[in-house]
């Protein structure tokens, strides 16, 4: 029965959409920059059917993976700016210029909406000798070799680990994985000692007790995992320069796309973002719902870019200085 209602709703919306607005005349194409089953893919596939209902047309999603999303970014940047090619992106393009991967990043795009943020969380195996975040840092300061999971330069685990190393002046033994999921799996098997990952990947494991959350890399505690302290509580003042920082998931259009299309999509995705179904999804995933549009979205992206780019550069992971691209060094606010 419910399905029939939804179908009818879609049909009536289709009719209404066709009558009122010129956009969209056909199904827009969405390019997701990470693979199926990943966090960005899940967020995109949760929000898009809701947005499609409001838009009156199905947005067809496809995964265009490779080169930490540079393939999808370049693909969309090379397509006409007609509002029918939508980029579903994460934070990665913010580092393309300093790592030399590509010259095309979010400067060539307008954010339609930033749907969700993903904060970092440091986790350890449940039977780890490090029961608190202090234990971990002290062990590292004491010169103990800590096997810390990581990913390629630019990934959340990599930047977060560098942030910790820089702030506390410690050095971990980095073990590199292809993604957050494999790193967490290795952590549960006891093959590494700790890893900093996005909360979206770890929330369920923390709540289920198969890993131990030591600290969230955020100014305050996060709703879904209230028991895990924030780094600001544990080390007041030390992290202020870099926070708030995390991964994010957003919807983007190429610069110069028709305003009509931008507004229609923004409207549809805002409604989707405020839909109770999406809110519930964000809560179960452990993500922080943002729903930022316009200048707020741009400011959020720039802050993230400044922190990540400078951290990467200071740790030697970047090929080019952020100064070359006029990225300001983050300061204490």
């Amino acid at each position, binding site marked *: 029965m419910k399905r029939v209602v939804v179908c009818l709703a879609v049909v009536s919306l289709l009719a209404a959409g066709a009558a009122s607005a010129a956009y969209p005349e056909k199904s827009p194409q969405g390019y997701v920059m990470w693979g199926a089953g990943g966090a960005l893919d899940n967020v995109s596939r949760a929000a898009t059917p809701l947005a499609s209902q409001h838009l009156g047309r199905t947005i067809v999603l496809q995964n265009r993976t490779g080169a930490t999303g540079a393939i999808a970014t370049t693909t969309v940047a090379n397509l006409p700016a007609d509002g029918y090619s939508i980029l579903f992106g994460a934070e990665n393009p913010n580092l393309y210029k300093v790592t030399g991967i590509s010259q095309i990043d979010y400067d060539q795009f307008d954010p339609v909406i930033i749907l969700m943020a993903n904060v970092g969380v440091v986790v350890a195996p449940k039977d780890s000798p490090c029961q608190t975040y202090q234990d971990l840092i002290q062990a590292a300061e004491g010169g103990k070799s800590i096997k810390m999971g990581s990913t390629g330069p630019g990934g959340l685990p990599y930047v977060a680990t560098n942030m910790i190393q820089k702030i506390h002046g410690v050095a971990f033994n980095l073990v590199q*994985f292809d993604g957050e999921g494999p790193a967490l799996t290795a952590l549960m098997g006891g093959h590494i000692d700790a890893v900093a990952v996005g909360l979206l990947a770890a929330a369920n494991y923390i709540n289920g007790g198969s890993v131990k959350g030591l600290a969230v890399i955020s100014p305050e505690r996060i709703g879904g995992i209230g028991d895990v302290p924030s780094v600001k509580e544990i080390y007041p003042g030390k992290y202020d320069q870099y926070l708030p920082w995390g991964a994010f998931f957003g919807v983007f259009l190429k610069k110069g796309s028709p305003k009509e299309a931008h507004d229609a999509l923004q409207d549809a995705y805002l409604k989707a973002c405020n839909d109770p179904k999406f809110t519930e999804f964000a809560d179960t995933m452990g993500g922080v719902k943002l729903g930022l549009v316009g200048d707020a979205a741009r400011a959020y992206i720039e802050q993230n870019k400044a922190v990540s780019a400078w951290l990467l550069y200071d740790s030697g992971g970047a090929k080019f200085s952020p100064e070359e691209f006029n990225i300001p060094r983050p300061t204490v606010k």
Partner: protein
Amino acid sequence: MTQNLQYFLIPFMDWRIMLLLWGGVFAGIWVGAIPGLSGTMAVSLLISFTFSWEINDALAVMCGTFVGAVYGGAITAILLNIPGAPAAIATGMEGYPLAQKGEAGKAIGLCTTVSLFAGFVGVAALAAAAPIIARFALKFSPRDFFLLAVMGILLIGSIGGGDPIKGIMSGTVGILISMIGMDPSTGELRYTFGSLNLMAGISFVTAMIGLFGVSEALTQFRTSGAKSPKQNLTKVIPDWPTFKKYLPLAVRSSLLGVFIGALPGTGGDVAALLAYDQAKRTTRNPETPFGHGAYEGLVAPETANKGAIGGAFIPMLTLGIPGDAITAIIIGALFIHGLRPGPMLMIETPHLFWMIVSMLIIANVALFVLGLLSVRPFAKIIEIPKSIIMPIIIILSVIGTYAIQNSVVDVFYMTGFGVLGYFMRLYGYATGPMVLGLILGPMLDSNYRRTMQIAEDRLFPFVSGFFTSPLSFFLTASIVFMLFSQTKLYRKWRGIE
């Protein structure tokens, strides 16, 4: 317990779930059979499609598609020598020669029957021992995954055909090609020469379609006057003695499949390849030699990849860790439907576990029935004259490659691999090892490096790890034995040949 039984029976009672399962299997068979279309792709499309459905209905159609797609890959592998999915590469090694002899019907019939059996083994393992197997799977360290990949690479000896040196060369070129692109763990660009397209790397499915499909078609054009083989379609379902003959092998291979499937990150493809190798090493006197249509070489990979389905659900349902690509997407679907797929899933929502178990049982039965019904029409495909079927195969390869990620560049790569494969065949270099290298190359590389990083880049801890960890020691010993069993000394001692 009675509660669980009730959950278990829900899908049997609900005609809608039944219908969706059967529909999913039917669609899955086609998805699996068409090269380029994969179960992964179909299930991720289903997420949007089933967004507003109830979770049970959505799961039913996803499970059905999963099971169907794993099976479908074998059909094109047997009929056309283009594995519809990587898990069917080994199947094609034996199935295609059988089809050329007119035994395609018998081959598909046997695959279908043993698939049902293996599917049940997988589900039984899932229902009975999921937590134990999952805990065991977590014990696999990067070093053990590296050793598994090495075991897989040894398969070159089995599928290399002809000159072993040429086989090794073909395999290592595959490994080298798999290095192209951005290294996923350090971001370093390898062999990209500044090209953004190369940064994305070359998908092994693209290479597989070219090396098997197009190069096969090109080779066939050398003898385009030849008639297509007439197919014998009597006795499609194997009789009891036949089934009994392959039963021990089916048991071994499906259990191997369950374990490999349960390991996070390895799925049906690796399981099928290892099982094929294992069958080739242990079968004393096959009726037909391997490489020319040995039924043992069909049974082993087909049971392993079906067992791997149940296996892949084990870490997913007990720990929330995906066992392979498709279960990763199903986890995403559960999130979107407001569930928490994690270690608490079985405690918070036990009905989900038992429903998936029964859905997989129904899907396997559906697979058996639909599979057998389609043997005849499918087998007729190869009786189509070559002058008609070959251009169609090429177009199918093109559209299939394009569909992987809507990229024309992939079509160029695929054509390139087709031409390369054609020349390789002319000079006696088998194409199978190259695909094997492409699949296993990243697994070898990244797990070797991870092991080295855990050993802090020092040689001694790296080497000693192979002997101090019991699991690694067992795997190392198996590899040494596998190598030793190829020597003349061993064959003489066991009286082989």
